[in-house]
């Protein structure tokens, strides 16, 4: 008892995790980690192995270690790979530009409305992703008011002039796919931004003002650098799923906007060319890992400066 009282009475928070039986943590970890190893790690190995096999679905596959499939895959589908990365990057930048003001407002200005706004930001998720993407077909419908307005203001002509659409409407275009991607992954950008902006002490921004920084300067030198962890997390959570997505390109695009996810899906499930599909899957994963590693490193060093 006395010992317990002493521990409770020490005042300073005890940071060190409690140590009970040495085997307990491993017993707690085992089922979950085993599941992830068997159904996440092992499949990556079988995916790699599948890409190096030859054969067909009827006669079965044999491992031949034929790496030329990768060169073949890149040669045939590099436009889709480049397009996927391009669309995902554009949507990520747009989501950052749109999401930052809302995240900042929720975190710093919303007061007692904060929780309600937070619920409204996640509320779109309560309706299925597919149904919401289909709703954009209603919104951007050729005979709808949005298209009529865009036509009367010359917005559709502008989009056509820069090559984002191919006719006088909005659907079935690059423009619609990028908008769909931006919309669908926007909450993934807003939530991490909100989390890091909420920790920002408003007195730091006030102090910058007191030291004669203009609002713009205070944002550039105080708010933005302090929100960088949220920016990094948000851009990753937006970019990665967007790069692999094919629902937006399929429902809102045309044959010129096919993304790599759609190719992988149809090679696996319709064309049944498993080695090629597996190779494309692996290439997509590798591209994302390389880009993300490069980006995190760069963002990390900027944070230090």
């Amino acid at each position, binding site marked *: 008892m006395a010992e317990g*009282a002493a*521990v409770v009475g020490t005042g300073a*928070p*005890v940071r*060190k*995790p409690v140590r*009970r039986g040495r085997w*307990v*943590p*491993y017993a*707690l*970890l085992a*089922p*979950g980690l085993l*599941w*992830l190893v068997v*159904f*996440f790690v092992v499949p*990556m190995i*079988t*995916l790699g*192995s599948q890409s190096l096999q030859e054969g067909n679905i009827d006669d079965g596959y044999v491992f031949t270690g034929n790496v030329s499939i990768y060169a073949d895959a890149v040669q045939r589908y590099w436009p889709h790979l480049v397009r996927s990365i391009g669309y995902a990057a554009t949507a990520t930048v747009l989501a950052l530009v*749109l*999401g930052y*003001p*809302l995240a900042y*407002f*929720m975190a710093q200005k919303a007061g007692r409305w904060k*929780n309600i706004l937070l*619920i409204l*930001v996640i*509320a*779109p998720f*309560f*309706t*299925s992703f*597919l*149904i*919401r993407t289909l*709703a954009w077909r*209603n919104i951007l*419908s050729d005979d*709808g008011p949005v298209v009529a307005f865009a036509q009367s203001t010359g917005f559709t002509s502008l989009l056509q002039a820069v090559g984002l659409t191919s006719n006088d409407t909005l659907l079935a275009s690059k423009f619609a796919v990028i908008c769909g991607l931006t*919309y669908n992954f926007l909450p993934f950008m807003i939530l991490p931004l909100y989390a890091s902006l909420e920790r920002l002490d408003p007195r730091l921004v006030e102090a910058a003002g007191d030291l004669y920084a203009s609002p713009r300067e205070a944002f550039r030198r105080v708010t933005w650098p302090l929100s960088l962890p949220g920016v990094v997390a948000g851009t990753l959570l937006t970019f*990665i799923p967007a790069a692999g*997505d*094919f*629902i937006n390109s399929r*429902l809102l695009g045309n044959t010129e906007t096919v993304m790599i*996810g759609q190719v*992988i*899906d149809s090679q*696996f*499930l319709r064309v049944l060319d498993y080695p090629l*599909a597996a190779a494309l*899957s*692996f290439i997509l*994963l590798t591209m*994302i890992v390389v880009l*993300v590693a490069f980006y995190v490193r760069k963002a990390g060093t900027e944070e230090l400066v």
Partner: protein
Amino acid sequence: MGVLSWIRRHLLAFAALAVLALLLVPNVVVAVFSFNDPVGKFNYNWAKFSTDAWAHPCGSPGICESLGLSLRIGVTASLVATVLGTMVALALGRYQFRGRAATNLLIFVPMATPEVVMGSSLLTLFLMLGIPSGALAILIAHIMFCVSFVVVAVKARVATLDPRLEEAAADLGATPAQTFLRVTLPLAAPGIAAGALLAFSLSFDDYIITNFNASPSSITFPMFVWGAAQRGVPVQVNVIGTVVFLAALLFVIAGQVLSNRRQRAV
């Protein structure tokens, strides 16, 4: 002056509300078009007000079967993922052990992998093991991608708990099992509930991974919607989308009110 400077001063609020409106417009459109009586098979243009679909939500063949399957898979997957994920989160939050960095990596990587890669890699595993496509394969896949999200949600809660509460329980003579059931679990409950909800909604909404592991006899609700999108989405899809949206919103708001009240009581 006046109006212009007022707008200037509230520019941030306007921008924020405009973005929020953008986020919510599709949900409103889904609800509005659930009352449409479309001309032809595509429900894209407004024709005429009708409550037919609301009166017969199962009126489209296969729609309620697919909804039932999605609910069953969602509940099972989120239950299993919540148990597995909570155990991992407690180990990470409460114990010191070797291999912590590797564990964190294994939890993080599935969240950072495109769904199309996870779905296709699981398909290659199931092909090699001879596990047939269908509800079991879908369930295995859903548990896999839900576990990490549960770990993150529960770990965030466990990190805010004071470990001295558990020590105090032990000092007062509670066995480890009693301490766990009467102290740790109730304190971690909000995080566990959040993780379970997140897991359910991820499972209920998944199309890309499910598509790789489904068979013609295991059509989930998102797969039904996808199939319907090619030939014309029945209005019932909008009805179900709206009902799920309102039910979830009500659920979350009730939870918020409840936790506010509890906080005030403390």
